[in-house]
């Protein structure tokens, strides 16, 4: 059940010009969190910014009682978040939403994690759970530039094969992550795909999934106020008309469930 938690900043580390990794002491959250769920952090007790900031859970360690958030400084809230020092208290609402649907116990096979830029954020926590289930896991990671390919070592450390591409060719293959996936599928069995990234990337993945009959799960981002299903702000169109809500119906959807 979602609740507000008083967490404490353990570290807040800059990984690139605009990406940061925040480690929080958050025992209760770490015990409940499922990969793909998200939290809403309140960066200030004042009214500007007013709303909480939705962030996906990058990693989670119930034994240590820690939660890791990976975020990009894109606006006032995230810039304020990047200034938090170790020891600061942070009000975190969560865990929220429905995460990734994981393979059943004993199910084998492989998984492809598809990340676009900061969309890599929810995938480490997922990778950890997949590896625990003995699923052969690969990360295909695309970003604008080498500096945006953050946190790769954490994936490699748990046995995930990482292949990168950049738009400017500064690291890995030059191109986008959908082309990378298309190439990858020439030589690999199409397993489950778990994706997070910008809307054009997810839209292209929907096309490819249809073409190649892939089962993909997409983690979406949306502007939202509450994160609890009350404001109905985070609407995403669904096939056949009407809307789903990213906060409670998602943030993870099957590729066929949403119209991007």
């Amino acid at each position, binding site marked *: *059940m*979602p*609740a*507000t938690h008083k967490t404490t900043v353990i570290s807040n580390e800059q990984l690139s010009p605009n990406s940061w990794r925040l480690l929080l002491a958050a025992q209760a959250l770490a015990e409940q969190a499922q990969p793909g769920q998200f939290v809403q952090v*309140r960066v200030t007790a004042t*009214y*500007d*910014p*007013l*709303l*909480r900031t939705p962030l996906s859970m990058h990693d989670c360690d119930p034994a240590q009682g820690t939660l890791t958030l990976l975020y990009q400084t894109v606006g006032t809230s995230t810039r304020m978040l990047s200034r938090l020092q170790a020891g600061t208290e942070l009000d975190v*609402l969560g865990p929220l939403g429905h995460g990734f649907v994981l393979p059943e116990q004993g199910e084998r096979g492989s998984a492809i994690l598809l990340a676009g830029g900061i969309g890599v954020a929810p995938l480490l926590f997922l990778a950890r759970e997949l590896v625990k289930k003995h699923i052969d896991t690969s990360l295909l990671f695309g970003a604008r530039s080498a500096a945006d390919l953050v946190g790769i070592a954490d994936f490699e450390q748990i046995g995930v094969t990482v292949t990168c591409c950049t738009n400017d060719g500064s690291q890995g293959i030059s191109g986008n992550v959908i082309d990378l996936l298309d190439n990858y599928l020439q030589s690999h069995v199409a397993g489950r795909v778990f994706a997070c990234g910008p809307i054009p990337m997810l839209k292209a993945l929907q096309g490819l999934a249809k073409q190649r009959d892939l089962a993909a799960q997409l983690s979406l981002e*949306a*502007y*939202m*106020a*509450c994160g*609890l*299903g*009350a*404001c*109905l*702000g*985070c*609407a*995403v*169109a669904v096939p056949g*008309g*009407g*809307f789903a809500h990213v906060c*409670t119906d998602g943030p993870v959807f099957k590729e066929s469930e949403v119209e991007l």
Partner: protein
Amino acid sequence: MRQVDLGVDIGSLRLSNPVLTASGTFGYGLEFRSFGDISALGGIVVKGTTLEPRAGNRPQRVVETAAGMLNSIGLENPGVDYFLTHYLPELRDLGVTTIVNMAGNTVEEYCRLTERLQQPGVAALELNISCPNVKAGGMAFGTSETAVYEVVGQVKRHTSLPLIVKLSPNVTDIASIAQAAEAAGADAISLVNTLLGMAVDTRTRRPILGNVVGGLSGPAIKPVALRMVWQVAQAVRVPVIGLGGIMTANDALEFIICGASAVQIGAANFIEPGTAWQVIDGIASYLREQGLSSVRELVGSLQF
């Protein structure tokens, strides 16, 4: 600890305390059960309900502004029948004081909706004639005295439940609108709904909201809401329910002192889901500190 009486009357409805949650900010209450006992609230006003289901407006639907937020949800809701079968029974079993916010496109639609809502478990009706986010109806009813008089009078003929009329702040003279509602039989007036606003993305020069304009809520609107509540409280004899940017018990007390018999917590539910319960506790503490025995002594007690 000294007991204080928090009970207030809204027409024939006695609320255990003056704190309600505003329509569209608290879902059907059930979404907030992990934050407190929803039956301990003065009541909840459920999401704006229409006769038929409504899909709502296209995204982007919310955007943050200075100390506030704009929304253009567009009354997305599953329709009255779904509410009656899927939410009302559970709310009734939990003993929640449930007030249903009603929205329509025509007087006829408001009347049919009112008839459908004559059900055990519905404590009162809130007539929404102030939604800024739908093209037909909504605010169009709430900005003319004759239209307000007509719709309130017609709806009143179809119900014996207390009828609260929710006013739009997007008018020239809020007191006259409130008086028209009272003359037509309103049992209480709630105000304010959101203030019409907009925001622009300067990189693309496009409106940020899919609906171009939306309703502003949050602490940014509190001084405007408070002024309007004060004006209306002086202009009508029926109880007034104040809302608009209430974040704390102190904010709520300002509204009560200005003449509100009860308050509604709106945008604050999005930021601190436990706000409504904190406001109840804060009002009780204030009464004890001030040596008052009942919150009713505080209503309209503004000193000059």
